[in-house]
Each structure stands twice: as C-alpha cells, then as structure tokens.
C-alpha cells in the first residue's frame, strides 16, 4: 500500500530537495508538495519545512490560512518540522523582536549571540553552518543512525524547550543546544535531513515508517 506524505508549501523556501529526499528515502512514499488543506489533511504523514525569518513564516501561515491546518495535522498524525518549521513548533521566538509561534511544544527559540566562543576561547561565528554531531535521546526516528552522527545545520537561532523531556537530540556550538525535539506524534529537527546525506535519508525513512 502506498503511503502519502504531504510537504506543506506555505511559501517559505524551496521544497524540491525535501520532496526528492523523501522519494529517495522510501520508494513507496507518494510525496505531495501542497498548500491545499484537504490534501494535507488526507496525508498519512506531514512534513513542515521552512527557511528564513520567523516573522515571515508566521505571517505566511496566517495569510495562506494554513495555520489551523498545521495545528490539526500536528494534533493527530506523524508530523516532522524541519529547521524554521521546527522552531515554529515552539511557543515563542526571540527573532524579529519577539514572535509568538505555534506552541506545539512549550519553550523558547533563542539567538546564539554575537559573543559565542568554544571551550578553548576561540570565537564562533553565527550562523552555525555546517556538519555537527548530534547526541541522541532514544527515539524511533534515530533507528539505524549511530549516536553522534553529523548532520548539516544552518541557523542562528536554536530551540530551548521548557521541558527537558521534549529534547530528542542535542548538539554543541558554544553551548549545548537542542538539535531535535519530540513530543508524542511530533518530531522536529534543527538540521536539514534532506541535506545530510545517508543519515538524513535514514531519518526521513524512519519518519515515513513511524506511526507516531
């Protein structure tokens, strides 16, 4: 039986790579890049991507009328937030002077800061860009991926869930930060699985095989 995964297209970033990566991850998956509420809610799995700034992201969700659709999808089926999509799953972001977000997972999205440094005192640049290791917290989406595997990140803000139980993975860049969040049927990653080679495809395959 073929399974349908909807990739929500609300105008925040190019979705070609995510769609292709999902197709590669699972040959049985029917990938639907769509802004149509009926098609999003008909899909068994939902991917909520995003790049750019959080104010634009929330604005697009409102203006396309997709905010309620995202909340409904997140309430009942396996749901994967990626990068800015994951940040939007939290309650509030410091970016753009402070923006209220979806509140699917309690917590705040914070700026790395301009005076970031590693343990040896070397200044660290922002954005955090490149391949960094992720320490996993046990979850089905990490199946077949070694703990400490590197994923591709590019971001200046990071999620800080209010409840440590919602952390599914951590990484380190001047500070330990949350690289993945999880709560019930929800999973969110700060990194880009669609740009993280084999490990990223494995995570997407795990998501498509997950019942939440």
């Amino acid at each position: 039986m073929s399974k349908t995964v909807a990739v929500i297209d609300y105008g925040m970033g190019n979705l070609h790579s995510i769609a292709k990566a999902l197709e590669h991850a699972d040959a049985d998956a029917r990938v639907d890049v769509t802004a149509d509420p009926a098609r999003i809610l008909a899909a068994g799995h939902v991917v909520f991507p995003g790049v750019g700034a959080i104010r634009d992201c929330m604005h697009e969700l409102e203006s396309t009328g997709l905010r309620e659709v995202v909340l409904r999808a997140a309430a009942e089926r396996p749901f994967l937030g990626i990068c800015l999509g994951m940040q939007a799953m939290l309650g509030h972001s410091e970016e753009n002077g402070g923006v209220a977000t979806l509140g699917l997972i309690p917590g705040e999205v914070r700026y790395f800061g301009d005076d970031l440094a590693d343990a040896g005192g070397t200044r660290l640049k922002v954005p955090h860009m490149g391949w960094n290791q992720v320490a996993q917290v046990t979850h089905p989406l990490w199946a077949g991926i070694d703990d400490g595997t590197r994923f591709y990140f590019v971001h200046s803000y990071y999620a800080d869930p209010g409840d440590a139980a919602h952390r599914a993975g951590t990484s380190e860049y001047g500070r330990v930060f949350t690289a993945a969040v999880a709560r019930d049927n929800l999973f969110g990653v700060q990194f880009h699985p669609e740009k993280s080679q084999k490990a990223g495809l494995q995570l997407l395959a795990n998501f498509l095989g997950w019942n939440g």
Partner: protein
Amino acid sequence: MSLAKRIIPCLDVDNGRVVKGVNFVDIRDAGDPVEIARRYDAEGADEITFLDITASSDDRETMVHVVEQVASEVFIPLTVGGGIRKVDDIRRMLNAGADKVGINSAAVARPEFVREAAERFGSQCIVVSIDAKRVSAQGEAPRWEIFTHGGRKATGIDAVEWAERMVELGAGELLLTSMDRDGTKIGFDLDYTRTISDRVNVPIIASGGVGNLDHLVDGVIKGHADAVLAASIFHFGEYSVEEAKRHMADAGIEVRL
C-alpha cells in the same frame, strides 16, 4: 563534539559541462556535472559549489537543469554562483534545488542587491564572492582590491572593507578568491583569508591556489577559514575528497569522515 571544517569541491560549468580555468583563461574539459557531483558526494564532500561561467543567457537555462538533476540525487548542500544578477535568478536556482547562491559582480554593481536578496530569501542562502588581488607593494601593510571581469577590471574597492559591508548588508557567508593565486597551485593567499575571517562574524570559504593537501590544512589553521574550496586537485584525480579529509584530520582538524 564540534562543528566540522568543510571541504567544498568546486565545478566550473560552461554550457552544462564541467571545465576548469587556469588563471581564469585556459579551459580543460573534465566532464559531466551530475556524474562528478555524485562521485564527490560518495567521497564525502561536505558541499558542492557550481560556478556557472557560461556567457550567454540561453545557456543559463542549462545550468538550472544541471542543478535540478544534481539536487534530485545528491543530498548535500549545493551552491550556485555565476550570472546571479536579479532576485529572479536566485529564485530559479533555489527552486531548482540549490541551497545557496553566490553573488559577485552584481554586488559590486549594486550593493543593495545583497540586502534585497537576504531580506527575500534569508542570509543563510546568500554567499558573496569576493575576487581580490593584492595591491600593496612588497614591505607595505598588505592590502587587497576587488577585481571584476575575471580579474581584468580593477574597482578601487578595498577587499576588507568590502567584506564588512557585505556582511552588514546580509551576506551569510563569504567566498574569498585570491586572483593572484587562482590556478597557480601554490596555495591560498593566507593573509587575505585570515585578515577577513578575523574581521567578520560569518563563515569564510578560502579559494584560489590549492595544489596539494597541505594547502587545505593551511587554509584552516593559518588562514582561519571555516571551509576550503578546491577544483582541479579533485577533478583530475590527483586526490580524492576522502584523502583530503583524512589528511586534514591527521593535522588535527575536525572533519566529517
């Protein structure tokens, strides 16, 4: 546990084929971009950069298709530079599957373009390429100037000041090419890379002059680069990306193996 330094093979693409200029002049054919990208991905390249050196706008459409094809089977970050002059050029490349675009002469012609691009698509996908030559005399404090048109046209712009301005306008990353070194195989201009890397708070990619694997190590350790870009040493099979990474790891540099 920390962020890895990146190795970025660069493919110069002319009308859909990978070529590499020596000092931006002589061109040798090195093959099919999709095939080469696939090979670099398998060898562990951290990203791939395409430099579209095509002159005509008809052939630019070819580049969009190249990006689409590569992005359909290679799942690492892809950057496209060359001929990016309008917001619409950026949109087309991102829609085709590119993650970042490199802006060069369009920024020199109109710096505000960088701000517009960053506001529209986010700083994370705006790489400003800075092609510079050393213009200070022997014994003077080093100074570099921006050159355009493949190094033929001086602009009078100081490269370090330019780098700071580009970051203020929204560049998320800077690709620094020493035009004195490009194609020479004698190594990066490390003073150039380090001076700018120490001055700005965005990642720096060193480019121009790589002839052996020690040059890559020097780029990171002495040039303070966050990523190193090279073309010919990889295309012509002198070294694999994997060998380059092992060499960097042996020198104590954190890489993704």
